[in-house]
């Protein structure tokens, strides 16, 4: 029986490598934080820690889920892209609404609140749209 394998970038070995790189970055960041003063030039501790944390969480989740569940095929990529598009559009509408609320002096959020709203809205709405489309089967 012929066998058509997906991209090697999604194999378990590659994700294990990502996980190890994540831990490595985390260690570098923590070492810098401990042994170098925060004001020192060339101290990228926060960047290393952020990048390392993201890699460890993403790769760890994929390893935990198992190979069958993180495999991306043409359907998941298509639905993923549509979910992100809808999320972007929703965020655009919300930003538009916030602008008018601010302009009409109805609500004046500070930068911190606005950032949290946008980060949560984009992340959560993308996931919600993707889940809805996954249940539907296709995007057409």
């Amino acid at each position, binding site marked *: *029986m*012929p*066998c*058509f*394998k*997906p991209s090697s970038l999604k194999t378990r070995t590659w994700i294990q490598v990502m996980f190890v790189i994540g831990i490595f970055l985390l260690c570098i960041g923590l070492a810098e934080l401990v042994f170098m003063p925060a004001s020192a030039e060339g101290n990228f501790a926060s960047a290393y820690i952020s990048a390392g944390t993201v890699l460890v969480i993403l790769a760890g989740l994929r390893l935990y889920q198992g190979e*069958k569940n993180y*495999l991306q*095929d*043409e*359907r*998941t990529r298509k639905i993923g892209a549509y979910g992100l598009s809808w999320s972007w559009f929703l965020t655009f509408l919300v930003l538009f609404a916030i602008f008018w609320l601010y302009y009409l002096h109805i609500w004046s959020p500070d930068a911190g609140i606005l950032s949290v709203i946008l980060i949560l809205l984009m992340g959560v709405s993308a996931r919600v749209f993707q889940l809805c489309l*996954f249940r*539907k*089967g*296709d995007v*057409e």
Partner: protein
Amino acid sequence: MKNRIRELRTRKNLTQADLADAVGVRRETIVFLEKGTYNPSLKLAHNVAVVLGTTVDELFLFEEEKEEAEEEGIDLVLEE
């Protein structure tokens, strides 16, 4: 789009997971393909046809699509 994937798959004693592994997609993709709710790319359609030992023409029921389109007044094939 209606298709004969389930029929040919069971005839070959393959599970949905076996077929998914063979063509390199998730099992859910095969589920939605069989239901006819997902329209695959030409490449995936070809791969599924190869694994099931048939052709894309045999696998997908284009005639029914054509009839439905004709009922709706759409010409699928341009003939001189």
